[in-house]
């Protein structure tokens, strides 16, 4: 990575005896869009609030553009932030809300007006300048909040679950809009969310957090396909977990329901007889053997759900159940419950969970 623009170094935060963030480290490159993804209470918002200056770290430091901002007040950091609850000032019009930061900075009225007009164009709401927040929909309010945050040209943009309060359709369109504006302005952005689809779809990198720690930091592709921990594997996407018994750690051989599976590489740290959790994404499995699939397991169809374009099938393999999706094909009826079935996959797609 080039010289990081934002560097969070060994940051810890405790409230009394409770530690909510432990030794958190992250470097963010200039113009990068990084998401903090995790369940409620994992510490993602606390890290964001420490970057914003609303919480002071108990230990560690935060550097932005080479400058240590750990002890700076929020109003001295030149950071923009969008809140989950919009936080538009109810007594001010849209234009006044967007111009608030510029006015506080002492900018001349003409310059404020011009910048506000520019921002309204960027968020595609030029006709809304004189409206009050209560006259806008949730999606419009959040776009105004975004315009207000970026109007003073902050060094860093923080988005604290900005889409959580919106309905599904608006969420999708607004997240694309946020990403497009972020790319256009090239502003370094931290996005907090508990929605994996959101994080996967718009981030350059994702930091998956759990228990106050970053479990894994990587691109959406890496996070999804190469989860580093059991938590990441379970939290991001749908996952089939199979219990297997190690038979030959040196050659990576494992038994699943008395059927042998050869994993890619050695099973370092395991010995024969150990039980392992093995993970497979549904899309890596097929009912019939496919080209490139070198492993198969026999089982019995346990459930079939016809969902229109997709058929979701659950196959029982001993004590394990594997879920997979197949596309609907009008020429082939779906499998019947109780039928014997073989599933196939590439052994390279099978992950060992730690």
């Amino acid at each position, binding site marked *: 990575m080039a010289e990081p623009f934002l560097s969070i170094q060994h940051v810890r935060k405790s409230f009394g005896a409770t530690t909510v963030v432990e030794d958190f480290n992250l470097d963010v490159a200039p113009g990068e869009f990084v998401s903090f993804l995790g369940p409620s209470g994992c510490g993602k918002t606390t890290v964001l609030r420490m970057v*914003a*200056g609303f919480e002071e770290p108990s230990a560690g430091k935060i550097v932005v553009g080479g400058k240590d901002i750990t002890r700076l007040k929020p*109003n001295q950091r030149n950071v923009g*932030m969008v809140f989950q*609850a919009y936080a538009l*000032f109810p007594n001010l019009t849209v234009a006044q809300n967007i111009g608030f930061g510029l006015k*506080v900075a002492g900018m001349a009225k003409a310059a404020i007006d011009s910048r506000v007009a520019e921002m309204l164009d960027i968020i595609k709401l030029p006709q809304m300048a004189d409206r009050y927040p209560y006259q806008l929909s949730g999606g419009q309010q959040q776009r105004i909040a975004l315009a*207000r945050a970026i109007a003073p040209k902050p060094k860093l943009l923080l988005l604290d679950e900005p889409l959580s309060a919106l309905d599904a359709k608006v969420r999708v369109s607004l997240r694309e809009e946020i990403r497009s504006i972020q790319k256009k302005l090239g502003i370094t952005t931290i996005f907090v969310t508990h929605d994996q689809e959101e994080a996967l779809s718009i981030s350059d990198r994702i930091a998956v957090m759990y228990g106050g720690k970053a479990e894994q930091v990587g691109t959406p592709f890496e996070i999804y396909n190469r989860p580093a921990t059991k938590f990441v594997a379970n939290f991001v996407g749908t996952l089939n977990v199979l219990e297997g018994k190690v038979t030959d750690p040196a050659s990576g051989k494992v038994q699943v329901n008395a059927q042998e599976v050869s994993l890619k590489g050695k099973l370092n740290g395991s010995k024969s007889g150990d039980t392992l959790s093995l993970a497979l994404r549904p899309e890596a499995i097929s009912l019939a053997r496919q080209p490139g699939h070198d492993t198969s397991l026999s089982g019995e169809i346990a459930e079939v759900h016809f969902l229109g374009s997709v058929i979701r099938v659950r196959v029982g393999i001993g004590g394990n159940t594997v879920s997979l999706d197949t596309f609907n094909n009008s020429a082939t009826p779906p499998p019947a419950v109780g039928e014997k079935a073989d599933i196939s996959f590439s052994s390279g797609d099978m992950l060992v969970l730690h």
Partner: protein
Amino acid sequence: MKTGRFWAWVVFILGAAYFFIPLIATVEFSMRMRRGAYSFDAYQIVLGDPRFQATFMYSVVAAIFTIILGVLVVVPAAYWIRLRLPQIRPLVEFITLLPLVIPAIVIVFGYIRMYGSNSPLPFLANDTATNALLVIGYATLSLPYMYRAVDTGLRTIDVRTLTEAAQILGAGWSTIITRVILPNVLIAVLSGAFLTFAIVIGEFTMASLLNRPAFGPYLQNIGANRAYEPAALAIIAFAITWGCMSLIQILSRFAPKSANRPN
């Protein structure tokens, strides 16, 4: 259902009679100054009395200063409690209720003992200082109303998020209070201000014992020595109070609407 409605009307009529009959009687009595005919003579005498004008103006000025003092003390305090010290809110609510429990006469005797001419803070040494002490006393008396009004106003907005939104945009505390918080609780502050005004205009104990020429002692003095004028004065004082209440109602229509609570 019909029986329930009937009794509801009975209760309403009894309540209205309890409230309006003394009022109508007072109005009727205040207009009987001229023998054998209704007239506004008592009102003319009262409104033309230089002492009425002087004491009323004195109380109006005292009320304005009390409101300013109340706003300066209560708004930042209630704001800070909501923002940073929500755990002490029950304690502060209790303290603000004390003026309703402790009689004004006890408070004013405390003042006289504490701030006499031998005190390090000799509020009673001259008229200006005593006027200031009276305003402080009035601010104490109006605290239950002002605090509750402001606190209710603060409850309607997301104080913490709005504060943080303003902070991250570069605003300092004075900007946050004057441009974000106060405008959004202005109607609540005005409600508190009008209640304060109504209390100060009619207050007797403090003004009398501190020997200040306020409207309350004037009302008492007229009441003790005249027949029809006290009734006219009571109606005038009542009209002022109702005027204040009406203004609260009218102004509340112009309150900034919260984005989350559009109506």
